């Protein structure tokens, strides 16, 4: 993807300002950036280093420590399959299998068209509705193989 051209630097500045360029808000700033692009484009790291007055190594160690942050481009839709205990005993593995088959990618990978990234998440707090998946901020519950695949197909149609 051609990143640099598409980064909205004004918006990045606004995010940093919102947190008063506080060093303590590094993770939150990266999360907000991630909400815009579904990952943290590496080009913004020097900006964070400068504006927050932190070391580059800290930015990288925070980015790698927290699972919500990715430095690699991710799909337009991030599909999180809950593999928390409640969903696990209700067959979350089968949902993961079905989606891997459907999207032809493995957990942690992104489809070639950059539409979907498939990830596992440990509980999103909808345990009574399990097995559940989230697609970006939307949650879908009470799934089985067929309905999980159907849900994803719905997003496909959104695009085309």
């Amino acid at each position, binding site marked *: 993807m051609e990143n640099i051209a598409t980064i909205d630097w004004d918006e990045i500045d606004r995010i940093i300002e919102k947190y008063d360029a*506080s*060093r*303590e*808000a*590094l*993770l*939150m700033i990266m*999360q907000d950036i991630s909400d815009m692009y579904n990952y943290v484009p590496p080009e913004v790291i020097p900006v964070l280093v400068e504006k927050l007055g*932190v070391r580059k190594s*800290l930015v990288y*160690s*925070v980015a790698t*420590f*927290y*699972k*919500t*942050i990715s430095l690699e481009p991710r799909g337009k839709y991030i599909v999180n399959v809950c*593999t*928390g*205990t*409640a969903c*696990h*005993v*209700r*067959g979350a593995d*089968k949902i993961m*299998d079905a989606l891997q088959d459907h999207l032809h990618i493995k957990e942690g990978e992104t489809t070639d068209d950059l539409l979907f990234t498939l990830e596992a*998440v*440990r*509980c*999103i*707090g*909808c*345990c*009574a*509705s*399990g097995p*559940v998946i989230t697609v970006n*901020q*939307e*949650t*879908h*519950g*009470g799934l089985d*193989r067929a309905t999980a695949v159907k849900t994803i197909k719905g997003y496909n149609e959104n695009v085309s």
Partner: protein
Amino acid sequence: MSLKPMEKTRPDQATAKLENKEALEELRNSLQVMSREKGKRLISLCAGSGCGAYGTAKVHKALIAELAKHGIQDDVEVKLSGCHGFCEKGPILVIHPEGIFYPQVKEDHIPDIVEETIKNGNLVKSLVFKDPASKQKISHEHDVPFYKLQKRIIFGNNGLIDPTSIEDYISVGGYSALEKALFDMTPGDIIDQVKKSGLRGRGGGGFPTGIKWATCARHAGDRYVICNADEGDPGAYMDRSLLEGNPHSVLEGMIIGAIAVGSHEGYVYVRHEYPLAVKNFSFALKNARRLGLLGENILGSGFDYDIHISRGGGAFVCGESTALMASLEGNPGRPRAKYIHTVEKGFRENPSLLNNVETWANVPVIINKGADWFASIGTEGSKGTKIFSLVGKVVNTGLVEVPMGTSLRTIIYDIGGGIPKKKKFKAVQTGGPSGGCIPEQFLDMGVDFDELTQVGSMMGSGGMIVMDQDTCMVDVARYFLDFLKEESCGQCNPCREGIKHMLQVLTDICAGDGKEGDIELLEEIGDMVAKASLCGLGTSAPNPVLTTIRYFRDEYEAHIRDKKCPAGVCKPLFYYEIDAEKCTGCTLCARKCPEQAISGEKKKVHRLDREKCIKCGICYDGCKFDAIVVK
């Protein structure tokens, strides 16, 4: 579609800053009079995350449109409430004042509900809840067995109020405890009440809350009062539901805590994966500031306290107190040794008071009703109620609030309705990845902090995952270690290497490569990890393994010696077969099998080709005659 908090200013929201306690009381009175005078129908529709996943937004839209169509939008109030607890049956709709209960409401049910119930006052028979256990039809919320046996002192207001309306919270008595704490009590009095109540932390360890407060108050510095909303225990979601559904109760608790220890700044550390909780809590902060209940000079008392929200990044270990504080400071969340406790030196090297969401929500109740009242609920060593997240293989899943000491049997069978599909109960897992699996023989045990520890498990945050005959206990142990391997921060050897080693042994056992001596090896490594790890993640990591070995040793032995997985989970260790005696030839399995591994004629016994079968379990789950068996 997502639900936005209703930002529009209602007439009752124009309220200006409350300058003193009289102004708060006046507001409360006028709100109560107003809601009595209105006396109109109220439809409470659950907009919690669970119901949201089943489509609340669509139902809400349809409801608003339908009321408008009938021209009765001004006679009926629609409230988007927080979680009612019975999320599995969502979206939940309750009509007040009668308390008519409609579960699993869909958009196309709305015309009937409006026409029949709202306009004509009749029940929509097809929508009435049928209790799966007794098969009885139950039309009113308070008669539903799932709710009937609960004691909802913390969670009860969730279904009644709109979490985005501070006025709703005030009208049910909200912020009266704050008023009391500010004007009628000294900080010492508050701490004494909390001590006397016997409240213990709901976040895992069960540490006496009052003692923690007193210790924090004793240490000098810029004290911080912090709420732990990291809720990392997979399968538990009471903290999420409280923050989403009744954020002001948590906020009020925190302000009272701040008064007690003398703090002027605080944080809520909440998971990034909980967007609605973040949204509703932010909204609560904004509204509390608007009314002068948070910020400078609260209610004209001269006391200042404000709160920031910090979003965590999905690391389980960040729920641990020292890691949480490292994360708040903008660093990777790695725990440190607790030679010095965080109540003395925590966030920014200052005394920090950290409590769990549910702990905070208990505080206003204690201040309002008194320590003695609170201490009259529960057991000798564990006072009050506890919210459990009853999930897994149980008929009624959801959030259950019961007095401490309630038996597992009451929770799982009377409230939870037992195990679905007539399967057999095998174990209940409590305490999350740090906890253990409790077998049938302890079902009559009263659940409190001490009893759970006694049987080798833990209260943890209140996750209760029910497992049936189809759950493999070796696989469960493997599952938790896999979780912990991912979540270990890796800075100390025993935890990092020990968990990896145990996981390898368990993976081998599940793959059919288990050896004699593996069980003893697991016990030995487990003992070392428990003793030598730095933080609670490591010291409790062996629990799921050790309790499953203790109570389900035969299952381990079946895997290792007979190369069999009796529950039919570990794929290399079992196969499916069709029981010729039971098969009716209904053809369902043959039609559903993705591999065409099943063949047979209508009304004749079917055959399963083991060579083709990939053990996906579709036939096993689908057969209505239990004719597919695990071998």
